[in-house]
C-alpha cells in the first residue's frame, strides 16, 4: 500500500529520473574513467557535492518563485536579464555611489519589486500574454544593463562577501555555502506556505480556473500582482548571492538563467497551463539539471554534446511525467466507472 502510494506520488517519476541519472553517471565513471575504485569517483566526492549544491543554489532560488508564478498560470521570461540588471545596478551603487552593503540590499529589493510590480500590473490588468509582456521586459533589462555597464564588469572589490563566501563546514571536505543554506530555508518556507496557508491554496486556484477563483472571492488581479512582486524578491535574493560569490557586477551574470529556471520548474512537474506543480518537484528538477551539467563536465563530454544530452534529458523527464499522470488518471477513472455502475 505504502509503496504504491509512493509510486503514485506526483514527484515519483522525476525522482526516478534523478536517481537513475546519478546511478548511471557513477557507473559510467567507474567503467570508463576511474577503473573500479568507487572512492575515486569524482562525482560523489564530498567536495564535488558541495560544489554542485553551490552551483544550483542561484537557479534554485529563482525556480521557487517561478514555480509559484507558473502554478498560477503565468510565466516570467525576464528573470535572467533582470538578474543582470539588478546585479550590475547593485555593483554600480556600491562602487560609484558608495552605498553600504545593507543599503544596497534594500536598494535591490525595492528595485526588483518595483520592476516586477510594473510588469505584474500590465499582466494582471490586461489580457496580454505574460509570455510576451515578460519578453518585452527581458529586452528592456538587457538594455538597462548595458546602459549601466557599457558592457564592462563593475568590480565590487571584495565587498559584500558575506552571502557568497561564508561556509558552514560540516566536515573538512563537505560544506554548505551560505546560498545553499538560504536555498534550503526558502524551499522549506515556500513548501509550508503552499501547503498550509490560504495564500498557497489561492495560487493553485488561480492557476486551476481563474473564473472560478474570482467567483470564490479571490481578487485574482491583485493576487497575480502579488505573485510577481514575490518573484521580484526571490530574483533579488538570488542576484545578491550570485554577485557576492562572483565579486563583480558582470553584465552576463544572469544570462540564459530564465531558460534554466523554467526548464527546471517544468521538469519538476509544474504544468505550463497552471494549476499543478509543487516545490519539491521543482527542487528535484533543479538538482537533476545541475547534476547533469556537473557530471558531463567530470566525464569530459564535449560541450557541444552537453547541449544535446541536456535537451534529451529534459524531454525524457517531461515524457515520464506525462505518461505517469496519464496512467494514474485512467486507473482512477476505471475505479470510478466500476464503482458507479455498481451503485
Amino acid at each position: 500500500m505504502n509503496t504504491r502510494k509512493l509510486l503514485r506520488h506526483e514527484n515519483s517519476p522525476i525522482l526516478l529520473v534523478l536517481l537513475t541519472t546519478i546511478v548511471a553517471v557513477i557507473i559510467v565513471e567507474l567503467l570508463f574513467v576511474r577503473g573500479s575504485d568507487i572512492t575515486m569517483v569524482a562525482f560523489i566526492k564530498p567536495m564535488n557535492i558541495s560544489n554542485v549544491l553551490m552551483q544550483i543554489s542561484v537557479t534554485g532560488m529563482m525556480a521557487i518563485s517561478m514555480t509559484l508564478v507558473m502554478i498560477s498560470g503565468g510565466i516570467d521570461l525576464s528573470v535572467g536579464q533582470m538578474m543582470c540588471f539588478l546585479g550590475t545596478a547593485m555593483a554600480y551603487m556600491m562602487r560609484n555611489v558608495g552605498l553600504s552593503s545593507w543599503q544596497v540590499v534594500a536598494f535591490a529589493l525595492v528595485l526588483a519589486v518595483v520592476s516586477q510590480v510594473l510588469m505584474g500590473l500590465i499582466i494582471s490588468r490586461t489580457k496580454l500574454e505574460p509570455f510576451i509582456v515578460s519578453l518585452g521586459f527581458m529586452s528592456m533589462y538587457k538594455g538597462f544593463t548595458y546602459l549601466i555597464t557599457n558592457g564592462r564588469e563593475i568590480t565590487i572589490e571584495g565587498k559584500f562577501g558575506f552571502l557568497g563566501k561564508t561556509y558552514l563546514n560540516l566536515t573538512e571536505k563537505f560544506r554548505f555555502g551560505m546560498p545553499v543554506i538560504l536555498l534550503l530555508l526558502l524551499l522549506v518556507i515556500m513548501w509550508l506556505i503552499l501547503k498550509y496557508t490560504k495564500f498557497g491554496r489561492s495560487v493553485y486556484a488561480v492557476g486551476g480556473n481563474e473564473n472560478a477563483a474570482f467567483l470564490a472571492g479571490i481578487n485574482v488581479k491583485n493576487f497575480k500582482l502579488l505573485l510577481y512582486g514575490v518573484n521580484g524578491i526571490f530574483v533579488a535574493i538570488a542576484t545578491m548571492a550570485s554577485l557576492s560569490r562572483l565579486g563583480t557586477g558582470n553584465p552576463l551574470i544572469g544570462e540564459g538563467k530564465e531558460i534554466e529556471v523554467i526548464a527546471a520548474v517544468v521538469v519538476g512537474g509544474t504544468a505550463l497551463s497552471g494549476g499543478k506543480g509543487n516545490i519539491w518537484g521543482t527542487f528535484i528538477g533543479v538538482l537533476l539539471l545541475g547534476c547533469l551539467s556537473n557530471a558531463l563536465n567530470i566525464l569530459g563530454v564535449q560541450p557541444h554534446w552537453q547541449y544535446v544530452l541536456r535537451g534529451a534529458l529534459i524531454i525524457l523527464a517531461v515524457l515520464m511525467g506525462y505518461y505517469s499522470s496519464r496512467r494514474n488518471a485512467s486507473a482512477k477513472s476505471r475505479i470510478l466507472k466500476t464503482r458507479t455502475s455498481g451503485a
Partner: protein
Amino acid sequence: MAEASSMSNEPILSMKGISKSYPGVRLFEDFDFDLRKGEIHCICGENGAGKSTLIKMFSGAHAQDKGSIFFEGKKIAGLNPHSAMKMGIQTIYQEHNLFPLLNVVENLYAGNEATIGLIINKPRMADRAREILEYLHSDISPLDTVGELGSGAQKTVEIARALLQDSKIIILDEPTASFNQVETAHLFEILKKLVKNGQSIIYISHHLEEVFSLANRVTVIRDGFKVNTYEIANLTEQTLIHDMVGRDVSLFYQRPRLPIGETTFEARNLCGNGVTDVSLTVHRGEILGISGMVGSGRTELAEMLFGVVKADSGEIFVNGIQSGMRNPLSAIRQRICFITEDRQATGLFLKHSLTKNIPIVSYRRTRTPFALPSEDIRMSENYVKALNIMTPSVFQLAMLLSGGNQQKVVLAKWFATQAEIFIFDEPTRGIDIGAKEEIYKIMISLLEENKSIIMISSDMPELIAMSDRIVVMRDGRKVAELGKDEISEETILKHAIGSSLK
C-alpha cells in the same frame, strides 16, 4: 407521424448483435437497432447509458467488438469516419465542430472545396451555400463569420454542411443543448422537412418534449442495453421516463410547501450589465424563480446580485441592511452564493481533487492565514457523505466525476461557507433525471433550514414545480412577477416572448 410520407418500413441502417466493451466496462451486449428510411428515430437514455458510444459506432469512430452493421441491406465491415461519410452517414456532435474564424461558405466546404483546376471556385461555392441555406429557410448570410453566429445558427451551418455531402442519414447528438425555444422550433422545422425529402435522422436527446414533438420511433437504452423501441403513438411520457430511469419518477417533482419567513434579500431598481430597473425580494424558506428566454438578462442580473459585475445604479439589501456588492468577496461575506450555469468553466477546479475544490470558498469566511490539509479532508469527507457524492475518495480529481456529482461538488463548495442566500443558475443543466431529483431534494432541505433561494432555469417543468414565485424577464427588464396561483407554462411563456408573438 402523418407528414413523414416517404417513410417506409425498410431499414436503411441496422445493427445486429452488437457488443462493445472498454477496459473494465461492458457497455453494449447483443444490441439490435434499426433505422427506417425517412424516419426520425430518437434515442433516449440517461447520461452514461451509452448514447455517445452508440453514435461513435454508427459514425465509424469506434469499432464494435462483435456483431454487424448493415447499410441499405449490405453488411459493412471496417467502418471508419471517412467511409461512413462517403456512404452518406453524417454525424453532428453535441459541441460545434466549426472553424469560428472562417465564414459560412468556407466552413461548409472546409476540406472539400469546389475547384477549377487548382483554383478554388468561390462564386460556385457561395451560390451552392446560398441555395442550401435558403432550402433550410435560414437567414444566415454565406459570408457571415461563423464565430459571430448564435448557437442555433451554428447548428444550422453544421446541418447545411452535412447536406452538402450527399447525406442519407444525419445523426444529431443533443443539438438543442444551448438553444432557446425559437431556435429549437426552427431546427425542428428543418428536420421535419429533411425527413420528408427522404433523409433519415437519428436524434439523441433527453428532453422529453423534443422527443414527443419530433420522433417517429423512440429507442430507449439503459446501461448499454436496449430497453425497448416504441412507435411514438404507443408511447407515453410515463413509460419513457420509467424505461430511462428504470423506476417510477413523478413527471413533475412534488415538493413540500414550507412556511415563508421574513425578507432576507432585496434588490431595488438595479441597472447595469444589460439589465434595466429590476427589483425583487426573496424571503426565508422561499424559492424565487427567474424565467425568460436565453439572452433576456437573467444571468446578467444574477451576476450583479453576486457582485461579479457592479451595478451602475440601484440598491441591494441583505437582511434589511444596504450592501454595496463590489465584488464576489463582499457577496460571500454577506453569505450569498452563486452556483453558476457552466460548472466546468466557472464552478470547478477540474484538475484539482475534491479536497481542493470543496473548502476553497470557505477560506474567505475566516481571517486566519492558515489552511490545514487535515481540516480540508475532514470537510470534504463530510460533504461527500452528506450530499451522497459518488467518488472513490476525496482525492479524486473533479474532472473524473459525472455531471451530477460535479454539480454536487459545486454545491458542497458553497454549503461550506454557511451561506444563507443561494443563487442557482440552471442548477440541473446536463445532469440526468436521477441526479436532478437529488439536487431538488438538496434545495428543499436548504429551505427547511430557513435559507432563501433564487433560481434561474430554462427547464420549465422544473421552474414551475420548484418556485414559490416567478419573475419573468425580457430584454433586460422584469416584465412580470407571478405568484403561486398564477404560475403556468402558458403565462410564463406569454410574458417571456412578449405580446408580439401569440
